[in-house]
């Protein structure tokens, strides 16, 4: 992955460099931009809201202390943050020795969010960045083009942290079919995003 001089990715990379140089304003900017996206991810991965908020703060705290470890050649900044959230959530699951599931009524699927534009009551600061909002709509449109089984299995894997074995047990879909759905779903999404001109490198 190559950093660009300008555009959203270039901005994010500059912010990461700023954070590595202990620039608080750079951290604030990245926090303002991505904290709400990451809090959704944390809330999906950990069913307890206060744990999700703790995880969010831990992730940005770790970013502040270890930004010099970030390698732009390996991942764009948001990808790095997303993977860090998932990794730390898995660590918490392991330490708690339990896999927590959200109550059925609270599950908001990517599909539902894409179709219905579900809104959550505003309880705090809310900032919507134009580039991020635009990218969100593009990705949602892409997700809508996946088949229902592809969406379901990707959602269970990515948002609930289930392995393909656990997904097969939960859905009673054969294991091979689960792997096939996840594989084909992600390959399809990659094609769709490339076809609409969304290069993950250039838009993050």
């Amino acid at each position: 992955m190559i950093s660009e001089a300008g555009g959203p990715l270039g901005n994010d990379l500059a912010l990461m460099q700023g954070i590595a140089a202990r620039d608080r304003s750079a951290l604030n900017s990245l926090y303002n931009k991505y904290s709400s996206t990451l809090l959704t991810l944390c809330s999906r991965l950990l069913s307890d809201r206060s744990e999700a908020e703790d995880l969010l703060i831990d992730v940005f705290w770790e970013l502040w202390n270890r930004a010099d470890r970030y390698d732009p050649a390996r991942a764009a900044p948001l990808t790095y943050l997303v993977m860090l959230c998932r990794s730390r959530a898995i660590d918490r699951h392991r330490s708690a020795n339990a896999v927590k599931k959200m109550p059925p009524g609270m599950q908001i699927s990517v599909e539902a969010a894409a179709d219905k534009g579900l809104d959550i009551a505003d309880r705090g600061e809310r900032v919507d960045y134009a580039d991020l909002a635009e990218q969100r709509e593009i990705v949602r449109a892409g997700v809508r083009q996946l088949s229902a089984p592809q969406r379901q299995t990707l959602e269970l894997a990515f948002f609930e942290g289930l392995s393909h074995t656990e997904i097969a047990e939960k859905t009673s879909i054969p294991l091979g079919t689960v792997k096939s759905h996840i594989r084909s779903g992600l390959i399809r999404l990659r094609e769709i995003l490339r076809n609409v001109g969304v290069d993950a490198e250039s838009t993050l």
Partner: protein
Amino acid sequence: MNCRDAQDLIPLQAAGAAVQEDSAQLEAHLQQCPHCRELMGDFTQVAAQLAIAATPTPVPAVLREALDWRIDQSLTQLPPLKMPSQTSRMGFIMALAASIALLVAVGMSLYIQHLQKTEIHGLHQLLAFSENQNRKVMAHEATVVTGWENRVHLLQSRVQQANEVIKMLKVPHLQMASLAGAGKQPSAFGRLLWDQHAKMWKFCATDLKRLQADKTYELWWITPASKKIPAGTFNVDETGFAMFTPTIPSGMKLSHTVTAAVTIEPAGGDMQPQGPVELIGKL
């Protein structure tokens, strides 16, 4: 692991669905294979887009305060202390040493005061954060208590209704009629229980939708001559259930009434049915 197996596994790993053994083998392969490593990065980027697709969650301001406090605490550091120097002349040395010692003492005193102020400020922030957290917990507990109180009230209401139905079932000349869902609520239904001799009547409805505040359900008696007689209005609870004692005009016998129906009318009811029929049944 060869590239073919790795490339089969990469999308699973990127989505977070790979099991631990497979992840470990894949990781070992990626260390050796730059092509697969690049593919892994590509799919990881794609998977990360899923996080963007979900609706963002508003972040409470207190979380920013907590992060700032944590960073502020980590930035507090002790400066190095300077040792006084010495000269060859004893008197000058003694005076100089005393002056320096005095300066050091004053400096340390001032520094300690600064540390205390910083610590107090930090404690204030921590206290504010803790108080915020306590308020959130108490608000949540109050909500839970209110919820349970509401449930108890609902259950008490249900017990009372059940007792009324039991009372009806004991009457010697009990008659019953069913009203089926019509129109837009096919799954709703109603039951009419009555004993003309004992002058007891009760109407129950189930699975009806709750109405807006300006609307109400109204029960009607329909005579063989198609005359519509109002029998009372009712509203259902959050489960779609209602029970009430309908109005029977003096001298009217339910067995002489052909049909009972429920319609939606303006709040307070109407003298003649205007709205859509939701339940209907023959007596």
